[in-house]
C-alpha cells in the first residue's frame, strides 16, 4: 500500500539531497559530483536560508546535506541551525578531514541531526587509493574526536571492487565506535564514470553482497541496494527508486534534479533561483516523467514488487536510457552468472576479511 501511495507522488519531497557546495579538499576518484573547486555562483547564505524556509513551508522532513565538503562553507553551522529551527532534520555527509575537537564539540549540541562520515576502506592501503593519500588517518582522527564528544555518527562506505573484501572489517570498525555501517552503491556518475571498470564491484561481488546483507541485519544501505534486497530486508527501506516521488536533489547553484546521480542536462527541472520549489516539484516535465517511469521488461519479473526496475540512474549511465532495467539487479546478475557458469558463492567466503 505504501509503495502505491508513494508512486502516485507526494505533495512535497520526504527528503531533499542538497549538495551545498562543490568545494572539496579531497579528490576522491569515485566522487559522484566531481567535486573540488567551488562552482561559480553557488547559493549565497541568504539564498540558502530562503531555500530552507521553502523546504520547511512544504513540510519536507529531512535534508541530506552533502557536497563537496559541507563543513568548508563558512556559513555551514548557521545554515544547520536555521534548518533545525525550522523543524527540518538534517543528515550531513562529510569526508571527516576537517572535523577536529572544536567542530565535534559544536556538533555535540545539535539535535535533529545525523552525521555520516565517509570511509572507503578498513585500511589506509585501500581507503587512500580511493579518497587520497593520508585520508585514512584523518578520517579515524575525526571518528575519535566525534566519539570523545559523544556525537553519534554512521560510517558510510561506497561498495567498490577494492573494499569489498573488507566488508567484515569495516563492520567491526564501525561497531568499535558504536556506529552503524552504511554501505552505499557505487554509481558511475561524476568521476565514477571514468573509473567504473576499475572500481565498480564485479557481478560476483554484488551477488555475494546480496547474501552478506541477509546475515548482517544491522548494516544499513539507505536507498542504495533495493535492486538486491532480500525479502527479509524489505521493511528496512524503499522498495523502489524514490527519485521525483519522495526525494530530489538541489545542486550548489540551485539546479533542481530528481536525484543526485542524475545531475545531467536531460534531467534538469529548473533552478530554485528562478522558480519555487513547489512549482518545480509539482509541475516539471522531468519529474512527471520519472514518476510515470515503467521499465516494461521488468513488469513480469518475480522480483518486480521488490525493485520496480531498479535504479534509473545506473540504467542511464550504462545505456543512456532510463527505460532499461538496472543491469545490476539480482535477477540480471544471476542470469549473467548462469551464462558464465559462476553461479554459487562459496569461493568468496575465504576472501572476506
Amino acid at each position, binding site marked *: *500500500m*505504501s509503495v502505491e*501511495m508513494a508512486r*502516485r507522488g*507526494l*505533495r*512535497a519531497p*520526504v527528503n531533499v539531497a542538497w549538495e551545498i557546495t562543490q568545494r572539496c579538499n579531497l579528490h576522491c576518484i569515485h566522487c559522484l559530483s566531481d567535486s573540488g573547486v567551488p562552482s561559480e555562483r553557488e547559493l549565497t547564505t541568504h539564498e540558502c536560508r530562503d531555500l530552507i524556509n521553502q523546504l520547511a513551508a512544504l*513540510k519536507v*522532513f*529531512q535534508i541530506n546535506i552533502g557536497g563537496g565538503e559541507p563543513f568548508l562553507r563558512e556559513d555551514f553551522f548557521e545554515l544547520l541551525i536555521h534548518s533545525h529551527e525550522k*523543524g527540518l*532534520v538534517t543528515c550531513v555527509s562529510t569526508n571527516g578531514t576537517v572535523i577536529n575537537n572544536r567542530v565535534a564539540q559544536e556538533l555535540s549540541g545539535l539535535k*535533529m541531526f545525523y552525521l555520516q562520515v565517509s570511509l572507503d576502506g578498513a585500511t589506509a592501503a585501500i581507503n587512500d587509493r580511493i579518497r587520497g593519500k593520508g585520508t585514512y588517518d584523518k578520517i579515524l582522527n575525526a571518528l575519535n574526536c566525534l566519539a570523545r564528544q559523544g556525537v553519534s555518527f554512521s560510517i558510510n562506505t561506497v561498495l567498490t571492487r577494492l573494499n569489498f573484501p573488507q566488508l567484515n572489517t569495516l563492520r567491526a570498525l564501525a561497531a568499535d565506535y558504536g556506529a552503524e555501517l552504511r554501505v552505499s552503491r557505487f554509481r558511475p556518475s561524476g568521476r565514477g564514470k571514468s573509473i567504473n571498470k576499475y572500481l565498480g564491484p564485479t557481478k560476483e561481488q554484488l551477488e555475494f553482497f546480496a547474501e552478506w546483507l541477509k546475515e548482517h541485519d544491522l548494516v544499513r544501505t539507505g536507498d542504495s541496494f533495493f535492486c538486491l534486497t532480500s525479502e527479509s530486508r524489505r521493511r528496512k527501506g524503499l522498495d523502489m527508486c524514490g527519485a521525483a516521488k519522495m526525494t530530489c536533489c538541489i545542486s550548489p547553484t540551485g539546479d533542481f534534479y530528481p536525484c543526485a546521480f542524475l545531475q545531467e542536462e536531460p534531467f534538469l527541472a529548473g533552478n530554485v533561483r528562478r522558480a519555487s520549489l513547489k512549482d518545480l516539484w509539482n509541475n516539471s516535465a522531468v519529474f512527471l516523467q520519472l514518476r510515470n517511469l515503467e521499465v516494461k521488461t521488468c513488469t513480469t519479473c518475480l522480483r518486480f514488487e521488490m525493485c520496480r526496475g531498479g535504479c534509473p540512474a545506473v540504467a542511464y549511465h550504462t545505456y543512456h536510457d532510463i527505460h532499461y532495467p538496472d543491469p545490476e539487479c539480482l535477477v540480471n546478475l544471476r542470469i549473467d552468472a548462469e551464462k558464465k557458469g559462476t553461479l554459487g558463492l562459496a569461493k568468496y567466503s575465504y576472501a572476506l576479511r
Partner: protein
Amino acid sequence: MNKVDLRYILAPGTQVREEEFGLLFYTMAGPRLYFLSSGKLLSSLFFEGECTLEQWIKQKCGKEAVSDDRIIEIERNLSQLKGKGVIIEC
C-alpha cells in the same frame, strides 16, 4: 475505556503532514515513514491530543458522513501506529 475514546499525540521525533491519501508520518528513529490512509478525515492538528477520533470526525465532517466501520478502521490503524511508537496516547 472504549477504544475510540483515546487521544493521541505525536511521539518525540515524529512529524506528520497531510497528503492526498491521508497522513504521512516521519520518525527520526530509522528514519522511517508510515502511511495512514485516512483521506481527508484527519489532519495533523488531530495529534494535538485535544479530542478523540469520534469527536474529531463529528466536529470536522459530521459523524453521519462517516460510517462506523470506517471509524473503527482508522482507529485500528492509529492503534498500530501507537504500537510502532509513532504516536502515543495522552
